[in-house]
């Protein structure tokens, strides 16, 4: 007598096997749990070197900077500017802006100046969902200054957005200033 597999068993097998296959595919990709960013304690008497270390931690964690930016990537495509040696470029990026004022503008009002060749996309860093505090932003500035330069920022550093004097030339809300150096398509911003 020939044994026949019941239809229900065959249908069940198709459903379970298909579901099982996709579950297996799901296990084959990188597995990573992502936790909410940790709050970093910033003491009042922190040194610039400590700020740089904390800034790096924020850059890679709470600030979500690495979602868009790379550091030292040699070939394209680039979503957003690569930040290798950004400290050097920041000093001359906008006429009359110090590196601190330039960084501050990119954090607090990022759409005022867009690096040529890229789309606007930088979120306002002191607002949710990232929501860095003024102190945390100073720490990230210190870290960015360390990329091709020497950090000089302290917690006492003032800029246009934390109660300091307005930038020498441009002010918040001023029209976009074209960047001095040209950037070739597909290359890191200079």
């Amino acid at each position, binding site marked *: 007598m020939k044994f026949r597999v019941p239809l229900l068993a065959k249908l069940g097998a198709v459903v379970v096997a298909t579901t099982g296959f*996709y579950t297996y595919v799901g296990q084959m990709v990188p597995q990573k749990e992502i936790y909410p960013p940790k709050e970093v304690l910033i003491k009042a008497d922190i040194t610039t070197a400590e700020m740089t270390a904390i800034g790096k931690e924020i850059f890679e964690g709470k600030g*979500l900077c690495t979602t868009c930016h790379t550091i030292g990537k040699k070939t394209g495509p680039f979503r957003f500017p690569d930040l290798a040696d950004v400290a050097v470029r920041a000093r001359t990026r906008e006429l009359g802006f110090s590196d601190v004022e330039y960084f501050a503008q990119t954090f607090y009002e990022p759409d005022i100046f867009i690096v040529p060749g890229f789309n606007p*996309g930088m979120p306002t860093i002191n607002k949710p969902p990232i929501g860095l505090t003024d102190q945390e932003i100073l720490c990230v500035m210190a870290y960015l200054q360390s990329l091709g330069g020497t950090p000089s920022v302290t917690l006492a550093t003032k800029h246009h957005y934390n109660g300091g004097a307005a930038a020498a030339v441009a002010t918040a809300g001023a029209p976009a200033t074209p960047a001095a150096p040209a950037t070739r398509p597909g290359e890191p911003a200079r």
Partner: protein
Amino acid sequence: MTGKGLKIAAGLVLAVLALAAAARVGLYLVEKHEYKEPERAQLADPTPREQGVLDEKAAADKVASAKPYVEAEYRAFPGIGSRVAIWIVAQLHLLFAAFVLAVPIFALIIEFIGYKTKDKRYDRLAYEFTKLLSVSFSLTATFGAALTFMLIILYPKFTNYMMSVFSPTFLPYVLLFFFEAFFLYTYYYGWGKFSPRIHLLLGLGLNLVGTGIMLIANAWVTFMTSPAGVSEKGAVISTWQAVRNFTWMPINVHRIIANIAFGGSIAGAYAAVKFLQATTDEERAHYDWMGYIGNFVAISAFLPLPFAGYWLAKEIYAYSQTLGLTMMGGAFSWLFIIQAVLIGNLFLGANYYLWLGMGRVPGAQNFQKYIKYLLIVVAACFMVWATPRSIIATVSEVRAMGGSSHPALGFLGVMSAKNTAVNILILTTFMSFLLYRRTGKTPTVPWAKTGNAVQLGIFGTAAAIVIGLGITGYFVEAKVRIGLSVPQVGSVLLAMIAITVIDVPLYRKARMSGEVQWGKIPAISQYVLIFIAVTFTWLMGLMGYVRSGLRQHWHVYGVYRDTSVDAFTPTLGFATKVVSVTVLIFFALIGFVFWLSSLHDKKDWEGGAS
């Protein structure tokens, strides 16, 4: 006294003595081992036990009566936790809701075709689809109620916040739900009882009300991803602004199309089950045709779905670049590789079913020779789409490659290649449909050759534009590259429309080499239909996860933070397990729906005689 009497007396005495001795020994042992209260000095107890107990109770009562009301922020669901419990129930609710919203759309269209053509087969088919609705509607409502109660119990504070933002929308939602029940049951039970026009109007009402319900529910979920109409601190400024947030309309369009695709695939699976159970050729022919229509609906809706997906993704980027990049380049980027596997399988399954279906028509050999080329194109596009940009590799392998991207294949992992692959995949599947449509037919119009040449030219041009722009994407800056996907998509859409416009008159009075022999299809084709339905369901579960999980540790992105124990993004492996469990529960329940619907066709029970 006789000697015997003396012996008895002596024996008794000895027995009494032995018993006395044994009793004494026993008493000694008991006394030795029993607990004895130690001797203590007779001091007064400073806190007598009874008084102490009363004091404790009074203190507890005092604390209890003074306890302030504190609103619970979260409560835990036993075993699997609150997030997974809500996740499964919400997904099941959505799957049944999608089915209940989708089936009336194509049931109405099929009924309308039957009304216009006077072909009773269409009317029967539309009724067969509608039969699946009533139990599914009850299950949708049950899961909806379970979801609401679970949200109130497990996430009370957040639910309260959502209630405050969307309070004006809840009463209309309930009213629409009532009307949905009214239209659905009159549409189903009124089949053949009203004039066709009145019945079609009932179907239209059902569709309009169902769409209205979906629009309101979509406002709630899209607000959580791209909030609008509230202050930075979450205070409500405008409920209407909250409703029409950035992703509301793209999700509305995406869901309507996806629901039709999903509903078509589930209806196709129902037909497949009935085909496999069929005992007569007539039944097999009917359910083969029903399965074909179900699959046709599913794939027809599936082809424009990626375009709706582009729009949704564009709006997510427009709302927040961070959110967009988290989706495509950050935590969820690998999820889209899984999605590529699923969509690739859907295309392969759909094409395979069409190619098997060519066997129904005499004279199909002319077209079957092209299938192997189409298969090569489909497989190649699938492989490109599923190529990741970065590869999981050991440290030494990464060093050998000079980075996490493969030196050659890595170039296929970027969006330029993937956009090109998916557009060619859509064009190829469309060509499969066209070949199937032409099987056994010879055009008789005098401009047939020109028409075919123009169609082929349009195909070639669209393919050339898609590939050309895909290659250009490697050599231009990001700003330009992102914009290239629009003409790619546009050329494919235009090509499909233009070719269809030519194809309809081209084959209007075509000569037939033979009638379609419905039911003459290998049984494996029916398992392919079930495979397609499971894949669609799984895909919906996966994309539901990314839409919701994208917010990461926010209930409402950037406004209302998730501070529960589940405020982290789980691994993709875990997420896929939850999706699979949900899919299995759904198919167990939809199997129940199929079984209940099939009872309708069974003979009445008459004292055991079936």
